[in-house]
């Protein structure tokens, strides 16, 4: 590890494994899908003037379908984001001149000292 820190454009797009995603992120989409599937059957039952929990097998089936759809779209979205990052990384690798490594500056280097003038 060098003592002078630099901003490497490639490293900005790499997963450095130093960030823990929140608990809900992993289950959010499957959860919403499950709840929506269950809720749709309840709504349909209400619309047909049945008790909302009548025919519980339908609730279970639609909850499973909803959960599966949530998982599927979650995977799709991750795939899309990974591909996008890979494309960007590849572009940077092909055009190193356009993306030079720059020295990382601190605010102390940028800002001038503040002299209050009254």
């Amino acid at each position, binding site marked *: 590890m060098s003592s002078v820190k630099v901003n490497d454009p490639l490293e900005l797009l790499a997963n450095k494994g130093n960030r823990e995603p929140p608990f809900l992120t992993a289950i959010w989409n499957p959860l919403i899908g499950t709840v929506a599937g269950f809720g749709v059957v309840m709504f349909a039952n209400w619309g047909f003037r049945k008790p909302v929990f009548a025919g519980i*097998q339908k609730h279970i089936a639609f909850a499973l379908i909803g959960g599966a759809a949530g998982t599927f779209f979650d995977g799709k979205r991750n795939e899309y984001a990974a591909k996008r990052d890979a494309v960007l990384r590849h572009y940077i690798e092909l055009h190193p001149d356009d993306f030079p490594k720059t020295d990382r500056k601190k605010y102390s280097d940028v800002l001038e000292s503040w002299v209050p003038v009254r």
Partner: protein
Amino acid sequence: MTAVFRVSLARLVSRGATAPATLLQAQTAVLPTVFMQKCNISGKTMRGGPRVPKAAPYPYKTKKYGLINSLFDKTSKRFDENSKVICVEGPIAAGKTKFAQELAAELDMLYYPAVDLDLYYINPYGFDMRKLDPELPPSCRSYDIRDFCKNPNHEQAALFQMRMYMLRYSQYIDALQHILSTGQGVVLERSPYSDFVFMEAMFRHGYISRGARSVYNEVRENTIGELLKPHLVIYLDLPVEIVQRQIRTRNVEYEAKSKAFTVDYLRDMDMLYKQHYLKEISSHAELLIYDWSSGGEAEVVVEDIERLDFQQHEVDPHNKKMLDWRFTLEDEWCEARIKYCHQKPTLMNYFNVPRFDVPELVRSADDGKVWRDVWLNVSGEIFVIFAFSYPIETFFQAPGMKYRPGYNADVGDSGLLTKTKIGINEAS
């Protein structure tokens, strides 16, 4: 020119045909025309036994009949000479019920009793919704034939007649379902086709307004064309004086003391029946009229029915008689059957004619809200959510109205947790 061509073509085609060698051959060749089979309605006595169905009846009350089913289960295979719609018509207390029942028994047909607003007011669990009247605003209270006889000038008379028409229409669809799914004929007491007789008589005596009559006619025009007209109409004719005497003899309290059934009213009904209804329907259906002043025998009528030749109208495809029942392709039979067996809700939707200009047929929003809350007892459900902030209204709840028929635990429906069935044609 065509005629010349036809003659020469006939000669050309028949050139190879040889003359019959023996007398017997000549006779057998002619046989089919001499002993041509006739397809007339036949009674039990004439046939010498009960009706034998040509194919097992389709369970149309519980099983759906849609496009896919129609590919596997054809329709006309169940039809025989007795697959006919017969309507028994006549004035009040003419003896239609007894006659229609006897007729149905003799012809092995299904009898449909005359409709009554009980079909509307008594819910599928047998609870009489008229008991809720004290909790309803005046515009939503019940009004049936008893009320009409007592007070024909009530503002709900028009609604009463609309409902009668609707029930007759619904029953006629049920009858068509039956005949198309089982091949068994049906005998109906009055029909949606003759319902306008009552409406018109009521209008002439000022029981319903001109606007209500116009709405009725518009609804009728929108709906009646969807049905298949009857094959045979039997009119039991009684002079007005005898109708009055019959009403007194039958002595049903609300009829005998009725303000509505005056001589003029009965005479108007008689005139409308004969001058309008019978005239109109006779262009399509066979018509039998009997003087029923001193009653009569169903057997005699059956003999007359057996003599009617329904087949004769099929010779000319442009003949207006029995036109509604002239389907050339099997697909068309199946389509008609799908329409009545599977799409009855769609047909009943044709009653939704947007006419808001007749006040006695329009219910105010406030009254409608009260009716909905009391009749379907739904508001409790919403209030439960806000139970802490709103007081729950405690009114009497009609049993078996909170959910659709078959889903009411309070009147003993069970297995609701896994129940998904809606019911095809069971609930009327």
